[in-house]
């Protein structure tokens, strides 16, 4: 049984799909249970995901098969067991929010700020959700597919 299938068997309430893609283990998770699942995966001795490698989002606006516009990806790694798991979680456009994982891993702090800055997905419960790469008065979220890459905005200095 692959790692993704093991995760699905153990957390069948929250995992909707488990598959292996080119050697990467991937599970798809319901949005409302993401935080509980992440913290269980960290604590569970069978999985022991102590390291949050990355959090990023993909905007599937121009992708025909995808009904849900955004997909937040978590890249978890276990140093002790040397295995990696990708968690995917759909986030709809009109309700672009998901629970924050900062209380599980402090590493999530900046990654989630970056996703908010670039994609405009709100992380509920994040202690300091503000822009990180762009400046505060920047309008819009540049990595969304409907943001033209050549749009110019006035550069305004920091507020404080």
């Amino acid at each position: 049984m692959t790692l993704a299938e093991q995760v699905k068997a153990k957390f069948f309430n929250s995992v909707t799909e488990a598959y292996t893609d080119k050697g990467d283990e991937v599970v798809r998770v319901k949005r409302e249970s993401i935080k509980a699942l992440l913290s269980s995966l960290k604590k569970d001795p069978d999985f022991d995901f102590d390291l949050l490698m990355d959090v990023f989002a993909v905007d599937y606006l121009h992708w025909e098969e995808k009904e849900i516009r955004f997909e937040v990806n978590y890249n978890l790694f276990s140093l002790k067991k040397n295995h990696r798991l990708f968690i995917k979680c759909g986030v709809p456009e009109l309700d672009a929010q998901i629970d924050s994982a900062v209380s599980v891993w402090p590493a999530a702090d900046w990654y989630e700020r970056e996703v908010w800055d670039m994609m405009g997905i709100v992380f509920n419960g994040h202690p300091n959700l503000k822009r990180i790469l762009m400046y505060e008065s920047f309008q819009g979220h540049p990595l969304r597919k409907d943001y033209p890459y050549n749009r110019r905005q006035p550069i305004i200095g920091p507020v404080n």
Partner: protein
Amino acid sequence: MGKPVSRNESPIESRSMLLNVGPQHPAMHGIVRIITRLQGETVIGAEVEIGYLHRAFEKMCEQGPYNNAIPYTDRLNYVSPLINNIGYCLAVEKILGINTTERCQYIRVLMSEISRVTDHLTCVGATAMELGAFTVFLYMIKAREFLYELIESVTGARLTISYARIGGLKADLPEDFEEKALIAVKETRKVLKEIEDLLDKNRIFVDRLRDVGTISKEDAIAYGITGPFLRSTGATYDVRKANPYLVYDRLDFDVPVGEHGDNLDRYYVRMEEMQQSLRLIEQAIAQMPKGPILVTPDGKVVPAAMMVDEAKMGRVQGFQAVKVEADPTLDGSAGASHDVVYSENKRVALPAKEDTYGNIEGLMNHFKLVMHGHGLRPPKGEAYFAVEGANGELGFHVTSDGTDRPYRVRVRPPCFPIVAALPKLIIGEMIGDIVPTFGSVNMIGGELDH
């Protein structure tokens, strides 16, 4: 007689002070701002602000064909651009499901390790310079220069090298590479010995670094830190050992590990990693399969430029058998060196020039790969590939929608989580300790700010 004032109770009222360090500060590289709250000289609060060098790497990658993103990856980590090049190519090759030739893999390992040494040299040298040891910096830059000259002889550029291609490499190694590389390795070893003599027992250097900027193993893992920074705390994670890619499993090297997670341990780990990388370079050169470079089957050689002219006139008969006399390094995919560094897969690899000019299949193949609207088209899907960058795990996650442009490229920059943990490192230290701690983080603005 009043009450005697105890040493801890200052008779002068003291308040905390807010101090901005950077972005216009020489030690902050002009791109990071640390807002510190000071009590006397002790840092009691800190907030790090980044984004001053944001260049929209991920957005720009989506705008052009797959190979167009390679120059952008050069500019992510500009002291070890080769590792970035190779990491991106490996991610795209994973979607395509192709393998590169053995010689190509060895060259990739070789160039990655040269880059790792240049990166660590810059980091340690700059840290020492910021502590006043300017000699060390000059010595290390001298050593880096040997390696940069080597890189220049292979790729044609010192910094913006754009050497890797999806499915291979731009060109093969030059003919005299082996001797040059061994001399550079020898010279670099000499410099490292000098640096060790200068710094390892240097009272000022050691006192400034020991027990400063300490982070525990648990905290480092919780912050998602990888690379030499994590290894200085005692964890052994190294992508090259944990999930060997390319030909790292055939090479013998050790992963140096620290104990205390302070600045001094990070210095030791980096110094030892350079020694290991030099070992890897020597092994890769020794084991590298020899490919035919510029073989002329029947002694007949036609210069590439003349071949182009002839082909324009339609006189192409017999061109297939003729080898082009072109420099095997910088004239791109020249002649016989082509098949030893490039994948045989026609979906990704540009044909050798004698095919392009010599027959219709080669010309069509070339056309399909370079023309607008055609190009390299990986199947729909996504892939993540992690390599060991100089700062830690450098991962590229590429999503393909089946067209000739990447739908989404995500880079996991290794110094991003380290800079996120910076407040934890500097709170409680003296203000003067910010500079060496920040130096040992080896913050690289290009990858930090994307």
